[in-house]
């Protein structure tokens, strides 16, 4: 069973008087445990594809299947449950909840999932240590650097071990060292926990870690190749 299956997806946005085809009859299948990098110039459709896979945006036509379930016809509540249980998100801008500390941000998804307090605490401390933020658990986002915030966002995305992690330009605001550490963490999770990663990026360093490169242009896949990770 595929982790992700998109069939003939179309999505058009209207910008002023112009229709922009973000997804143009796109079909793609991603197997469980793959580490996929979506690449395209700006406006090529990779973020739209990520949003469609994550159930954040509904395509105009076509089908989206996640772990054998068709999601493009689900209600908002069902999509919320699906995201909560199966998908971890890392967004381009860190997107932490500013009123919560680093640890509370990491615990947030688990708390909504109903994980016990002790387990949440153990897991959040462990994952924050894993992403190099030991000792910063009590800091709020405004008290952390961009790189630290992004690592908190990554910790939040992976702490409950989702089957699928969707990351949109995860290294866009990170320095080279932090980017490398982050990608090594992704690779480790992919290899040791068989977590499926779909990452949209321009970053050549990220592409080097991917096992599969999907190039997009104007909402279509123009190249889909497997490669050996760095």
């Amino acid at each position, binding site marked *: 069973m595929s982790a992700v299956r998109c069939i003939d997806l179309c999505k058009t946005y209207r910008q002023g008087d112009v229709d922009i085809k973000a997804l143009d009859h796109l079909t793609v299948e991603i197997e469980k445990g793959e580490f996929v990098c979506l690449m395209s110039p700006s406006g090529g459709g990779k973020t739209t594809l990520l*949003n469609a896979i*994550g159930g*954040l*945006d509904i395509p105009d036509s076509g089908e989206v299947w996640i772990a054998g379930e068709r999601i493009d016809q689900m209600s*908002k*509540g069902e999509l*919320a*449950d*699906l*995201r*909560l*249980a199966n998908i971890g*998100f890392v*967004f381009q801008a860190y*997107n932490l*909840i*500013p*009123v*919560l500390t680093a640890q509370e941000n990491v615990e*947030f*998804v688990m*708390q*909504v*999932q*109903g994980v016990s307090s002790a387990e949440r605490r153990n897991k959040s401390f462990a994952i924050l240590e894993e992403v190099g933020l030991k000792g910063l658990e009590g800091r709020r986002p405004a008290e952390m650097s961009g790189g630290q915030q992004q690592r908190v966002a990554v910790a*939040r995305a992976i702490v409950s071990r989702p089957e699928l992690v969707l990351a949109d330009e995860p290294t866009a605001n990170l320095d080279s060292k932090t980017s490398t550490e982050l990608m090594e963490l992704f690779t480790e999770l992919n290899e040791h926990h068989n977590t499926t990663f779909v990452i949209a990026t321009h970053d050549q360093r990220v592409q080097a870690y991917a096992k599969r490169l999907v190039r997009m242009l104007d909402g279509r896949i123009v190249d889909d190749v497997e490669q050996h990770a760095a």
Partner: protein
Amino acid sequence: MRMFFVLSRLAWRYLWRNHRRTIVMLSAIAVGTWAMIFMTALTRGMVDQMIVDGISVIPGHVQIHDPEYLDDPSVNNRVAFSDTEIAARFSDAGFTAWASRVRVPAVVTSERESRGVTLLGIDPAAEKSFSFVDYDNVDGRFLEGPDDKGIVLGAKLAETLETRVGKRVVLMSQDPDNEIADRGFRVVGLFHAEMEATEESYTFVGKHTAQNMLRIGDTVTEVVFLGDDYRDVEPVYNKVVGLVDDSVRVSRWTEVDTYLGTMMGMMDGFMLIWVIVIFLALSFGLVNTLVMAVFERIREIGLMLALGMKPSSILGQILIESMMLLAVGLVIGDFLAWATIKPLESGIDISVVAKGMEMFGAASVLYPNLDINDVILSNVVVMILGFFASLSPAWRASRYEPVEAITKV
């Protein structure tokens, strides 16, 4: 419960994210709540005082009359039972207090002036529980018994009649045959009341002396009963009804003095309207605060939705935030009201406007009455209305599409 805790923590943190705005809004709610309760306490205090004064002048909670008496309060419309029989019926019935009296219109004349008054022929001992007159605060003395031959006038009436303690006046009324019934009395005391109108309206003589003057034998025009609470006179009313027959009319005080009776009902309605008016003013601030709070965190709402929080949880979070804001504001407002009303409970001197207040039956000292039911009502109404006022911004927040919200700049 788990989700409620998560949402409550988020709501509380978001409330203090923009602490300046929250403090301004809390101040508005607290001042509004204070105004609601303080004004209500003043008004209720005034109305209560008017009612208590009115009842103590009328007096009593329940009364017995001849069926025609309230329309024509003359000596011809006397209670059908003799005073002896009345005593036999009610003495051992367990009333808090009761008294029978003669109450008829009369004219009192001094050597200089005449005035129309209400003559009250009373037994001072039985009347003590009812009377607005402080027996110990009378210039001269009060009546000593039902056979007392003296008369007690109001201080203001004495001034009008240009008479004083020790002088004589003539009291004149009609007997049952419509003949003039009059008698000279020596003024033995001048009573004081909260309102000058009361001092001008009533004169007291001994009950037996009045009966003799009016030639009505052992009869009276009115029997009055006191219960425990003027707001709930039904137990006394029912007891009295059970002890009499159709030859007399039993009336609650609200039927005898419809003005005061209506006033009591109006007070509760006024309280509700007052609370709603204040809340409407507050609600603009509340809704504006919530709209701003939602607007400035659209991205975060989008993020929460993207992470798997349901729209209903977003709705709940905003509502909890609103309820927390209101609850904290109400607690502060309640405390402020308590702290400002308590020191004033011994009375606020409003004698500078006494004349105006007297026109509608209020005294020159105002005793604020902090009624717990008023506090509860204002708090509950604010919370309920606040809930509904918050629904719109909360609903809007829950309807955001995550992908649009998360990319909002």
